[in-house]
């Protein structure tokens, strides 16, 4: 008997169809993975089960939980279910907790509400639950506030709230997407343990096929609000009967063709970083005292040869973005020097930086935030032309922008559009067009594909590879995603707590990591090949 059964579920918000005839079930003790790209309706499915949909939403079909018809249940009945029999964990741990209440209050609140326990009893249960999710009382008393915890710790609190009353069903909507791979692995382990301990059903929602394959017994693949394929995880993914399943799986493992890989050593280095260090002054603890300085980047040295593609990998907060900003001369190192094409960049005025800026461009992570919404593509992509010695005429400028757009696979018609008229993948192409318009020698890309859906991401990686071949641009890829590093780089640098702890050929470092930090990253990284192999083995 299934715990949760969804049949023929259709959902409209206003006039917009969101879901169509969705079928899904979760049995007690089972992990059901719900996979789909953005806009596929996976979060809305979860909110339908919780009945926390926006006001304009209309759902039809049947959603049964433990014999209760969810769609026709009264609000009082739903309140009794939520937090007691059904718990939910959300994507964004930084904002999921009330900033003005202690973690103890927030965990105990649901317990008191549902069980009518006294405050002391509820706090005792909250304490046990926090211990269980890995927040021991010595370091994390009930009186802590959310802002005193890190993202991973906050997500543990959210899990404690959701699981405090041992729910029969837990819904986890992208619970690890906002966390780095090491934290992701820890949180996934925790969820798996909670499932086995309490014979809890888990509906795990994710865009990441590898994560779901590692976790789920069965999977359901959703696209544009419709179920494409559903079934046993190992069988579904090995057979890949449905074309969309195949497409997703292939895109997840995509490696761009790179006929000629570049090796360092021969030519004179393009970029040299020597002993770069960046300190941030500590927060003031009282009127006269400051906390000691925080060293974000600690004595880092590296070099990149022309045309070489290098990955800088590390956990979030390891200092990789700070290092990138220093290389781009957007931030000054506290000490150390950065040389680009043999010339020192550090400490130069903006006017003297112009020649360096021409040959060094950047691609950012967020395809939505990296364009001024008030300007047209022509002006946006042309922005780096500002560093040319001679300002191009309007016609020249248009010509060069059109050329750059052509190189990234966009047409001249896109010149007069605003950024909001493009999809996420197209915007990332615009971002690349902007980066290559000055014909730079080096492009620094800060998590350039991590905000994209897998199929789009495969295309963008191909584009990066192509431009590397065609224009001989060197890359510094900053990423926490090892599959990206593996796909597109020759060399990898592993950064940990401000230091570079390991470096070498990408395949060597990722296959045989030496340092502890690199080993942690490699073991934690979800890998579709490995996950599928393990699944197959388990089932024999």
């Amino acid at each position, binding site marked *: 008997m299934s715990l949760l059964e969804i049949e023929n579920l259709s959902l409209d918000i206003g006039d917009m169809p969101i879901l169509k005839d969705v079928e899904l079930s979760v049995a007690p003790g089972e992990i059901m993975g719900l996979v789909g790209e953005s806009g596929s309706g996976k979060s809305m499915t979860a909110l339908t089960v*919780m009945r*926390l949909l926006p*006001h304009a939403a209309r759902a039809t079909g049947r959603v049964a939980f433990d014999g209760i018809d969810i769609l026709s249940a009264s*609000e*009082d009945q739903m*309140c*009794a*279910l*939520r*937090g*007691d029999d059904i*718990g*939910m964990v*959300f994507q*964004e741990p930084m*904002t*999921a*907790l*009330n*900033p*003005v*209440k202690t973690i103890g209050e*927030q965990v105990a*609140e*649901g317990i008191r*509400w*549902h069980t009518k326990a006294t405050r002391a009893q509820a706090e005792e249960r909250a304490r046990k639950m926090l211990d269980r999710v890995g927040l021991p009382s010595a370091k994390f008393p009930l009186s802590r*506030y959310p*802002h*005193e915890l890190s993202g991973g710790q906050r997500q543990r609190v*959210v899990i404690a*709230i*959701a699981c405090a009353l041992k729910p029969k069903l837990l819904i986890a909507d992208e619970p690890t997407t906002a966390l780095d791979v090491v934290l992701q692995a820890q949180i996934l382990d925790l969820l798996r343990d909670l499932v086995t301990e309490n014979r809890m059903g888990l509906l795990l929602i994710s865009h990441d096929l590898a994560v779901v394959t590692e976790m789920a017994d069965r999977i359901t693949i959703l696209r544009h609000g419709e179920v494409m394929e559903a079934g046993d995880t190992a069988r579904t993914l090995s057979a890949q009967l449905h074309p969309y399943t195949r497409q997703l799986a292939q895109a997840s493992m995509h490696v761009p063709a790179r006929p000629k890989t570049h090796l360092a050593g021969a030519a004179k280095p393009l970029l040299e970083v020597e002993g770069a260090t960046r300190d941030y002054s500590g*927060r*003031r*603890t*009282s*009127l006269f005292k400051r906390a000691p300085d925080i060293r974000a980047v600690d004595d880092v040295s590296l070099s990149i040869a022309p045309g070489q593609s290098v990955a800088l990998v590390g956990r979030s907060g390891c200092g990789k973005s700070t290092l990138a900003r220093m290389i781009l001369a957007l931030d000054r190192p506290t000490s150390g020097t950065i040389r680009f094409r043999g010339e020192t960049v550090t400490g130069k005025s903006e006017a003297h930086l112009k020649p360096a800026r021409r040959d060094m461009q950047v691609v950012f992570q967020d395809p939505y935030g990296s364009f001024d919404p008030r300007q047209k593509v022509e002006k946006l992509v042309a922005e780096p032309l500002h560093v040319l010695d001679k300002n191009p005429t309007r016609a020249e400028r248009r010509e060069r922008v059109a050329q750059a757009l052509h190189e990234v696979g966009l047409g001249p018609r896109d010149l007069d559009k605003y950024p909001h008229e493009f999809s996420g993948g197209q915007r990332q192409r615009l971002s690349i067009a902007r980066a290559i318009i000055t014909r730079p020698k080096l492009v620094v890309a800060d998590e350039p594909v991590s905000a994209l859906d897998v199929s789009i991401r495969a295309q963008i990686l191909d584009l990066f590879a192509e431009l590397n071949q065609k224009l001989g641009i060197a890359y510094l890829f900053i990423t926490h995603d090892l599959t990206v590093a593996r796909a597109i780089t020759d060399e990898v640098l592993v950064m940990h707590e401000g230091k570079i702890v390991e470096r070498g050929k990408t395949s060597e470092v990722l296959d045989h990591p030496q340092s502890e930090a690199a080993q942690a990253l490699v073991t934690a990284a979800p890998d579709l090949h490995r996950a599928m192999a393990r699944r197959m083995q388990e089932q024999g």
Partner: protein
Amino acid sequence: MTTYLLKRLAIAFATLVLASIVVFAVLEILPGDPARLMLGMNASTDQVELLRNQMGLNAPLVLRYLHWAGGLLSLDFGRSYTYSVPVIDLVRERLAVSLPLALIALALSTVIAIPVGLFSASRRGRAGDTISMGAAQLGVAVPNFWFALMLIYVFAVWLRLVPAGGFPGWGAGAWPALKSLLLPAVALALPQAAILARVTRSALIEVLNEDYIRTARAKGLPYRAVLWRHALRNAMIPVLTILGLQFAFLLAGTIIIENVFYLPGLGRLVFQAITQRDLIVVESVVMLLVAAVIAVNLLVDLSYAAVDPRLRGRR
């Protein structure tokens, strides 16, 4: 916590000192010689000069400022040129009217606005919300002195329930005195209440869109419980900010309202003092009002820390 408190205190004090310099400087450039004003046009230059020396008007600027500022600190505000009594006595007498008026108005505005804001936010988009926000929109547009005139017309001229103006003094008993403050307080409070209700509603709605509200709903709390337990406290910060700003509005509002109702309050005192060039009174009252505004803003800053734990550890 202590750092935050100390920093706020230091800023408040610095603002007060700067404000006193500004007030002093502004009044220095005011045209008109107070000694000449006191003695009248027929007095001889010698007489005026003698009085100027007596009043200390011929001392160097910095000395005069220090003397005045020192006086302020010891509550010795000097003597009024026109009333020939110590300013402190005038202020004390007038404060007995203005302070109760401002406090009643502030209390009235808060007591009306917060429940209306809560009601509106909890019924967002429904008839109750539309009606109360429509009324608030109208309330914001009404000038308080015109509203006062209308109140006088209805309640004093037509219904004869309360006096149209004047103040019998607290000596005449608490009730008659309060009765004559009632209309002025309502006239001051309602437009402010309209603003505050709108702010309360929009702050609540903003907070209700936050992720942690969804977390609380997923815990099984009904909507109303979420509103009270989670949304209200988080929405208090913008509401407190506006409350602090409104205090300054109310103080200034008393100037006009006291004129409408012929109330012998601070506002009327300072207004008359300006037209009569009674500088020492103007300086003292303005400084007093500014000090009150700064003190209230300090209180608001401190209450932020009480509401929001993130401020306690920092700065």
